């Protein structure tokens, strides 16, 4: 913190700033109109992801508006001396996937990006959160933003996760308990052996979804798992600097006597594979449950009815057996190699259902290469699936990957808002395993029934 303003926000110094094509152009315009430079260009990294096609990336981008926005990011990055990883660049990919992959994400760092899923980086014990374009301009100009201090919440989950229960299910479970606004105003720490035993990728999935319950950020204390992940990556400190960094990382623990404004505890063993039935991520439930009655849901009955009406669902129905038209695996939530391993493990030896269009979109070129090297692509191809090229894709459907109006998608992404995956699209959020079960059966299916078949 650079300065505390009496009766106002704190001035917070930003160690790492990630930018993409959608939320940065107006910030650069602001710099130009004020005639100011980027203060520390080596602290900002640019990648194109939101608006990029996921096929034929070697060809010019067909949509002129998208092409223009991508060009703006490239020319702004070049003009101000910012590292730019555009389409075709080996390091191009989803901002919250490539940041950690290249070691830009480090424990204890302050990290911001004009994207609400910047909370992802909290998995490393970083203070990471999404900002608006005015703030992007502030960071470019002064490497600082002005933020009020958030309240602190700790969510403890202990116990052994059941078969077929993934980090995505843990996150969707938490959000279903807190609602889509239950953590607004808070930074959340996730604690307990469920998170301690999670891989870095799983932790990223959990922290990524913090914003879906309103929390600006979520974090997990760095441990050996974190350090093993960070060590030796391109932008990770080396040599003596690494020793110094390591000593610092080891201090990043919550004090034993720390007091939180709110503390919640859940039993990990009670969590099921989850699925959403409504139009915000808080409207989720265990896949074996029935859609709740309005009387049992927080909030107004009219809003609830509007939501179920949009989805074409009714109170008291089971989700299992509902038809599925599209399956999307990818995004900053579930576009990493472990997600594709999970998906592949379940579709192996089966075949994609004829009624399903499946979009498998890796989060980066590293993930894409791993899918090929590990032989997953062969299994997927055998099962009737194709792999696309990295990008945000159908998570927000800014490119051509749009789910048509009225169609149902089981999606590993992060938002089931009305029209999120295309105007009129209907999204059910779930894990890569639930997505796989839907992809091979053509309907909402409890993945545990298929795992049992395999066993």
């Amino acid at each position, binding site marked *: 913190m*650079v300065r505390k*303003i*009496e*009766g106002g*926000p704190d*001035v917070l*110094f930003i*160690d790492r700033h990630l930018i993409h094509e*959608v*939320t940065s152009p*107006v910030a650069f*315009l602001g710099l130009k109109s*004020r005639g*100011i430079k980027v*203060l520390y260009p080596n602290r900002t990294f640019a990648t194109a992801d*939101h*608006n990029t096609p996921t096929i034929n990336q070697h060809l010019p981008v067909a949509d002129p*508006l998208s092409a*223009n*926005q991508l060009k703006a990011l490239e020319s702004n990055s070049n003009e101000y001396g910012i590292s730019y990883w555009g389409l075709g660049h080996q390091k191009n990919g989803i901002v919250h996937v490539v940041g950690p992959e290249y070691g830009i994400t480090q424990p*204890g760092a302050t990290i911001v990006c*004009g994207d*609400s899923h910047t909370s992802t980086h909290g998995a490393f014990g970083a203070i990471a959160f999404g*900002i*608006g*374009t*005015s*703030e992007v*301009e*502030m960071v470019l100009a*002064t*490497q*600082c*933003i*002005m*933020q*009020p201090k*958030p309240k602190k919440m700790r969510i403890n989950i202990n116990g052994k996760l059941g078969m077929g229960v993934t980090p995505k299910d843990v996150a969707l479970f938490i959000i279903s308990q807190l609602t889509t*606004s239950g953590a*607004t*105003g808070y930074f959340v720490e996730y604690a307990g052996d469920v998170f301690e035993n999670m891989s870095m990728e799983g932790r990223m999935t959990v922290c990524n979804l913090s914003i879906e319950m309103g929390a*600006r950020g979520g974090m997990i204390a760095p441990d050996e798992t974190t350090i093993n992940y960070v060590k030796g990556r391109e932008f990770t400190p080396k040599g003596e*600097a690494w020793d*110094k*960094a390591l000593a*610092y990382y080891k201090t990043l623990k919550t004090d034993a006597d720390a007091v939180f404004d709110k503390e919640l505890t859940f039993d990990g063993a009670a969590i099921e594979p989850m699925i959403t039935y409504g139009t915000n991520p808080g409207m989720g439930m265990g896949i074996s449950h029935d859609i709740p009655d309005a009387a049992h849901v927080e*909030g*107004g009955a*009219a*809003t609830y009815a509007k939501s179920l009406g949009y989805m074409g669902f009714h109170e008291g129905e089971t989700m299992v057996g509902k038809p599925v038209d599209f399956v999307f695996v990818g995004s900053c939530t579930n576009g990493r190699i472990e997600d594709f391993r999970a998906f592949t493990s379940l579709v192996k030896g089966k075949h994609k259902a004829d009624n399903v269009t499946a979009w498998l979109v890796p989060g980066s070129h590293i993930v894409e290469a791993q899918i090929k090297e590990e032989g997953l692509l062969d299994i997927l191809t055998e099962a009737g699936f194709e792999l696309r090229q990295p990008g945000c894709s159908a998570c*927000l*459907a*800014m490119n051509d990957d749009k789910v048509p109006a009225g169609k149902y998608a089981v999606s590993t992404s992060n*938002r089931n*808002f*009305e*029209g*999120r995956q295309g*105007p*009129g699209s209907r999204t059910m959020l779930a894990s890569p395993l639930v997505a796989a079960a839907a992809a091979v059966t053509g309907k909402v299916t409890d993945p545990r029934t298929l795992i049992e078949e395999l066993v």
Partner: protein
Amino acid sequence: MNHKQQIMAYDKFNILRSTAVPLPIENIDTDQIIPARFLKATERVGFGDNLFRDWRYNPDNTPKKDFVLNNPVFSGKILVGGKNFGSGSSREHAAWAIYDYGFRCVVSSFFADIFRGNCLNIGVLPVQVSPEFAEKIFAAIFADPKTEIEVNLSAQTITLLATGEKETFDINSYKKNNMLNGFDDIDYLQSIKPEIEEFAANLPL
């Protein structure tokens, strides 16, 4: 605040007296306020045309008659939304669209964090009221769409002028000063640049 401000970034805000547009739906996310496919501009122009695009227009671009922005009975510079307004994506375009359409104030019983901050940064005043007062406001507008609401930033009050019922609202003194004067944060941060550079030079890592 004693720093020198260079730029008046947006209109000054002091007292706003206006009719209001009611949108009593909870959890209105920024994807509804401005869908992602309309985020492709590289300049901050024209976003108001696509405010609530998919609630406001049919797929063939004809207006949806039952949506409040298409109902000539309701108008004004104040938008009154349901609880948890502005959740989801950090897109500042949502606040731009609200401003560009002509709103200068959004009232709700609860705001999402990033959206609230974005509004404050561009000159739209987010006014958080109690759930009870939000209900009173909705009832007053539906009973008489011509009813006027006064938002007084200096006094931090929101008043239903017909009955005089009022509530106070919170805003930190720094942001209040910015809104009253049309200032933004960049000039402030620029003014403390030596302090920032010294901080950067002494970072532990």
